[in-house]
């Protein structure tokens, strides 16, 4: 199997070769996190095939690596490297607005957790989990102010957003590189949504109305 490697740097335009493999909705000027997100979301439907690479630590500049297979390019697999500056200023600001300053600061704290943070178990925060959270801002720019959202790290490197709904029941929305998981204590439901179904995930979590979903 052929292996393709793509290194995206926010300050660097894509090489011409790569423009041809990106979908039309990704413009050459869209670099960095936004480009990666679009690429992951729509270009080759990579989300379902994503998996973490154990060799991540071999790339000190990278904060995340995604590997994909069965993409639109026949008989290929590939790797995406997200560099340390993946979350550019604009993305960071969107995330700060979405979560609020307090939760955004907490996110910074969670990024410090290293592998084994849960007494030997526990993966560090996967940068693509953060990108997944960032993707929600395309639908909901601000987390409803009447909910005080708390952030936790899941054992697999996902980002847990937890709050109490208006009736005092706990709701959890977990962002992972490939999916959203919603647990609602009031209904007892546990639902998993693919990354592209983020409207449904937000609706299931009670954060948007049915008309938007």
């Amino acid at each position, binding site marked *: 199997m052929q292996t393709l490697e793509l290194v995206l740097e926010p300050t660097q335009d894509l090489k011409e070769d790569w423009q041809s493999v990106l979908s039309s909705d990704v413009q050459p000027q869209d670099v960095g996190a936004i480009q990666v997100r679009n690429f992951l979301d729509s270009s080759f439907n990579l989300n379902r095939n994503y998996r973490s690479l154990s060799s991540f630590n071999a790339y000190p500049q990278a904060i995340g690596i995604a590997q994909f297979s069965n993409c639109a390019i026949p008989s290929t697999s590939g790797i995406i490297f997200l560099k340390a500056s993946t979350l550019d200023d604009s993305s960071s600001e969107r995330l700060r607005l979405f979560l609020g300053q307090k939760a955004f600061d907490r996110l910074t704290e969670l990024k410090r*957790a*290293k592998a*084994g943070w*849960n*007494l030997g178990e526990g993966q560090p925060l996967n940068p693509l989990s953060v990108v997944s959270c960032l993707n929600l801002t395309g639908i909901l720019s601000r987390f409803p102010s009447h909910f*005080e959202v708390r952030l936790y790290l899941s054992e697999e490197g996902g980002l*847990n957003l937890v709050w109490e709904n208006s009736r005092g029941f*706990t709701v*959890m929305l977990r962002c992972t590189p490939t999916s959203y998981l919603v647990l609602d204590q009031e209904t007892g439901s546990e639902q998993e949504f693919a990354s592209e179904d983020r409207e449904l995930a937000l609706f299931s979590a009670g954060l948007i109305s049915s008309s938007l979903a």
Partner: protein
Amino acid sequence: MTENVPRPRCNNEEDLIRAIPSPRYCNGRVSPDLFKSKAVSVNRLLITDLKTSLEIFRSALEKPAKGVSLSGYATVQTGELIKFVADFVKTNSDLRKRGFTVWVEAAPTESNQGHAEIMPNITEAISFNLVTYLEKEGKIVILN
């Protein structure tokens, strides 16, 4: 062939303690997935008392440093845990069909003689409700 020897189960009266690392504690509340895992690591307070257990937890988090700290701990009696899970299973058709149940096995290590594991796993939903229950019962302690 020692790996085939069944590990002893903890009896129902034994108190268990689970560490709460800082990524699982935020604004006075514990993450609902605190217990969600396969073979959930706990300590047996009968073997390692509270002080010793906390020292073991801190050591595991700090040597080498993991960028986190020990925020607190949760305690639960083995029998109480088993009953809680059994009661939850009654309300969940999927788990009920599978005849889901949990038990606690002693799993001592060289550096932690009190180590035990809740087997086979705690599901997301069980953990979610167990944390709420333990919070209400005052069995979650946050350290200063």
